[in-house]
C-alpha cells in the first residue's frame, strides 16, 4: 500500500504510465462503444471509427479545400488571433484586480460592480451585445473578455488582498511610492498565482470563443464545429475538439514551465 501513501515516489516511467492510464481507458471505452454502435449500424455518425476520423483530419488538415486553403490551419489561425488579443487584454483585468485589491477607491467603485457583473450570463443578452460591439472581430474578442475578465479581476483582487500587510508596510518604510508598491512589491509576488489562474481560465476562453464564432464568423475552430454540427459530422468535430484541447493544454504547459523557470522562488517559499 506504500504507493497509495503520501510518501510514495514514482519514477518518471511509472508516472508516465500512471498518467497514461486514464487516457488509455477513455480512448478504449470510446472505441469499444464505437465498435458496438457500428455493429448495430455501420453508418453510425455519432461515434466515428478511427479511420473515419483520420479521413476527417486528412480532409481538413492536409488537403486544400475549394479555395485552396488548408482549413484546419486557417481555422486555427483565426481562432488563435482572437484568443491572443483577448489574452493580451486580460492584462487590464489583472491591473484592475490589482488596483481594487490595493486602492480603496478602486475597491469601492469596482468591486461590487464586477462581482455582480461576473454573475451576469451575458451570452443571453446577445442582441444588446450586438448593439454595443457590432458583428466584427471586436465582438468576438469582447465576448471572450466578457466571459473571463471579471473572473481574472476578482481572483487577482483576492490575491492582492492576501499579500501580507507587512510586505506593503515594509515597502513604504523603504521609500517605495504607491507605484513601486503596486508594481514592484505586490504584482511580482502574486504574478505566479495570477498566471496559474489565467491558465485555468483557458477553458472558459475557448468556450466563449466557440460561442462567439458560432454567432457570426466565416472561419475559426468554433465556427467549423458549429457548421458541421448540423451534419452530425462527428468525424470532424471530435478531431477539432481534441485539437483545441491539445492547443490549450500546450499553452497551459508553457505557462507552467514559464512559472517554474521565471519564478523559482515561488515553488519553495
Amino acid at each position, binding site marked *: 500500500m506504500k504507493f497509495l501513501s503520501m510518501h510514495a515516489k514514482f519514477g518518471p516511467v511509472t508516472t508516465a504510465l500512471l498518467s497514461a492510464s486514464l487516457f488509455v481507458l477513455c480512448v478504449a471505452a470510446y472505441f469499444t462503444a464505437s465498435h458496438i454502435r457500428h455493429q448495430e449500424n455501420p453508418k453510425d455518425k455519432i461515434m466515428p471509427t478511427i479511420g473515419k476520423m483520420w479521413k476527417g483530419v486528412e480532409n481538413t488538415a492536409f488537403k486544400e479545400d475549394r479555395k485552396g486553403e488548408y482549413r484546419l490551419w486557417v481555422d486555427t489561425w483565426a481562432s488563435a488571433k482572437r484568443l491572443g488579443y483577448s489574452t493580451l487584454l486580460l492584462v487590464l483585468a489583472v491591473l484592475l484586480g490589482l488596483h481594487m485589491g490595493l486602492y480603496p477607491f478602486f475597491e469601492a467603485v469596482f468591486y461590487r460592480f464586477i462581482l455582480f457583473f461576473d454573475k451576469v450570463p451575458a451570452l443571453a443578452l446577445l442582441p444588446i451585445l450586438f448593439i454595443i460591439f457590432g458583428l466584427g472581430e471586436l465582438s468576438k474578442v469582447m465576448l471572450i473578455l466578457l466571459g473571463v475578465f471579471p473572473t481574472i479581476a476578482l481572483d487577482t483582487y483576492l490575491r492582492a488582498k492576501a499579500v501580507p500587510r507587512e510586505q506593503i508596510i515594509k515597502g513604504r518604510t*523603504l521609500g517605495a511610492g504607491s507605484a513601486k508598491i503596486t508594481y514592484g512589491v505586490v504584482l511580482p509576488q502574486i504574478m505566479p498565482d495570477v498566471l496559474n489562474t489565467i491558465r485555468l481560465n483557458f477553458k472558459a476562453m475557448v468556450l466563449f470563443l466557440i460561442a462567439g464564432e458560432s454567432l457570426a464568423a466565416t472561419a475559426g475552430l468554433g465556427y467549423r464545429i458549429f457548421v458541421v454540427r448540423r451534419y452530425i459530422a462527428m468525424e470532424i468535430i471530435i478531431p477539432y475538439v481534441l485539437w483545441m484541447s491539445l492547443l490549450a493544454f500546450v499553452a497551459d504547459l508553457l505557462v507552467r514551465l514559464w512559472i517554474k523557470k521565471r519564478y523559482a522562488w515561488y515553488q519553495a517559499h
Partner: protein
Amino acid sequence: MNDTNPMLHLEDVYMRYPSRDGTPITILNDIDLKVRQGEFITVVGPSGCGKSTLLRLILGAESPTEGAVLLDGKKLDAPNRNRGIVFQKYSLFPHLSVMDNIVFGLDAEAHGMFLGWLKPGQMRQRRRAFRDQAQVYLERIGLADAADKYPHELSGGMRQRVAIAQSLIMKPRILLMDEPFGALDHATRTEMQLFILEQWEQAEMTIFFVTHDLEEACFLGSRVLVLSQYYQTDAGRGQGAKIVGDFATPGGHPKPTDFLYSEEMSQLVHRIRSEGLSPDNLQHIRDFNLTHRDAFRTVNPEEWQREQ
C-alpha cells in the same frame, strides 16, 4: 544632540483587542512617552507584554484605540520612508534576491517605478552605485557570498541580518527593530551590535530596539524602556502593560565593550529583572523607575490615591 526638543510624543495611549467573548482586552494601558531625536532606546519586557504592538503604533501601521501618537507635534501618518522597521518575523520580499532586497529602498527612492524606461543609461549607472553600496553592507553582515540567494534559501539568522541591512541602508529618521538579533550567535551578534551603533552615530537616527537580552539592552541603549504587564496599582493587579521603567543607562553612550562585563552592568540587569520582569514580584505603580529626564506619566485616581 540630546538637547533637541522631543520629536515623538505618545500620550495616554491605550491599545485594546476584542476578545472571543466581546469584551476588549487591554494590551497597552496608558502609555506616556517622549523621545528626542538621536536617542537609542532599547525596549525590554516579558513575552507578550506589547513591545511589538508599541513599535507598530510608532510605525503608524496601527492606530491606538485611545490616545495620540505625535511626531513633530503632528498626528502620525501612514508608514513612510522616515521610519524604518525590522519585523520580528523579518519578512523579506520573497521574490527578490538578497542583493535586490537590500537595494530595494535605494532604488525606490532614487527613481520611481518608471524612470528606468525613460533614462535607462542614468538608471543603470545609479543602479551600479547602489549595488556597490549594498555590497559594503553585505560584507559587514557577513553575507557577501549570499547576494544572489533568495530568502527561502537562507537560514533564520541570515534572513534577520538581511532585513537589518535592508532597513539600515536607508538611514531612516526613526528605526524600529523588533528582536533583530534573536536568531544570531554570539560572535555575529557582537559584530552586528557594533555595526548598528556605528550606523546610528553616523546617521543620527533615533532607534527603538526590542530585545530580551538585558545585557544587550543596557549596552546598546542610551535609554532603556521597560514595558510590563506585571505591576499593581491601588486598585489591584494591573491590566495591560505600562512603562514600568524608563531610565538613561549610566556611563555615556556609545559604551566601551568592556562595559558589558562591568559590575555596573550586572547590577543594572539584576535590577531590571527583579523590578520589571518578574510575574511574582509585582511592583507598585508608585515605585516605577521613571528617572529618565523625559519620562512623564498620567495616572488615574483609582490607580494611585495620592492622598494616602
